[in-house]
């Protein structure tokens, strides 16, 4: 294997690889914020979020990310998480939503938001299924959960929009944020 071309300092070197595309800040009245018309010129997407649900349950609830507004029952996810005393793994198939993380609710410790970083590599590729990998965490000072979720979106379609929804399709608490970044490669 010959050495790869190394990115030389030049005009493009002045620009970082992580390019902000869009940001959403919840005001407490929105159920499912969406990023649409996602540019197709990056190598990967990275979604950084800080989320709290208005659900009234005391347990953590699921956060879902829908590519291309697709809510058909075709998603599969493998999860790994730890709750402070043990670790567990689970799988969900034929799901309408991309189960990406667990987040706190209005009944959780005050002012606590779950944090998530979601990676979608090769999102604009039209010959491969999409793998959506999320590292997430939520600590409630005495309880909590942290984990990794890997979702298969079984379509070769390029991802052009992302929509976020929490369990029960309830409002996101004010202060919830989603920031979408494009990760550019050499020449992009």
């Amino acid at each position, binding site marked *: 294997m010959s050495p790869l071309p190394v990115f030389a300092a030049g005009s493009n070197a002045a620009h970082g690889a992580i390019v902000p595309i869009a940001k959403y800040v919840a005001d407490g009245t929105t159920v499912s914020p969406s990023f649409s018309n996602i540019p197709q010129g990056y190598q*990967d997407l990275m979604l950084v979020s800080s989320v709290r649900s208005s659900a009234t349950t005391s347990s953590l609830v699921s956060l879902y990310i829908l590519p291309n507004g697709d809510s058909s029952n075709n998603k*599969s996810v493998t*999860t790994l998480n730890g709750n402070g005393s043990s670790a567990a793994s689970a799988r969900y198939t034929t799901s309408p939503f991309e189960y990406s993380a667990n987040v706190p609710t209005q009944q959780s410790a005050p002012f606590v938001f779950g944090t998530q970083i979601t990676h979608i590599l090769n999102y604009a590729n039209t*010959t491969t299924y999409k793998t959506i990998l999320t590292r997430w965490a939520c600590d409630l000072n005495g309880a909590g959960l942290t984990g990794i979720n890997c979702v298969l979106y079984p379509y070769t379609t390029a991802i052009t929009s992302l929509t976020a929804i929490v369990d029960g399709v309830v409002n996101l608490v004010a202060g919830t944020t989603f920031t979408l970044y494009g990760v550019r490669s050499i020449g992009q």
Partner: protein
Amino acid sequence: MSMYPIASYTTTASGGDATITLSSIPATFTHLQLRVFARDTTSGTGMTGGYMRFNGDSGGNYARHYVEGDGASATSGASSPSQFSAGQFLVMPKAGDTANAWATWVIDILDYANTNKNKTMKGIAGVDLNGSGQVYLGSSLWMSTAAINSILLGASTNFAQGTRVDLYGISTSNATGA
């Protein structure tokens, strides 16, 4: 903190690549991040794993720890030092696994150019195959204080055509260290 693309490679050969080497890595960044979209040509089903080496070192100087979830249970493991231990949490689909499904790896190598530290990498890796799959939180140790100037990614057999590797350098601010 800013991230910059250093190198990129896509497997174009129909038979794939047994290894992918990113060489001549500049020492001017603070950290490195590898972002990999991969699949292996190993026949059969059930997923397989890749490995990593630094600076062409094929000695038994690598170790690893990981936590893995397979959809039913979570397990943790480690390995004795060997030449294949680095990155052994880097799971990939095999040739017979779900068509068009690919693995995602995001790997961080902190302080890669520091010559006073052995090198620790950490990463997350995942594959879901709609009925099977694995996710990993892993780390590996390279027992060398040498600055990392090349990274080899090894497949179980070959990386499949379409495998994509992107290497980024992460810089810090001289003023704030952020």
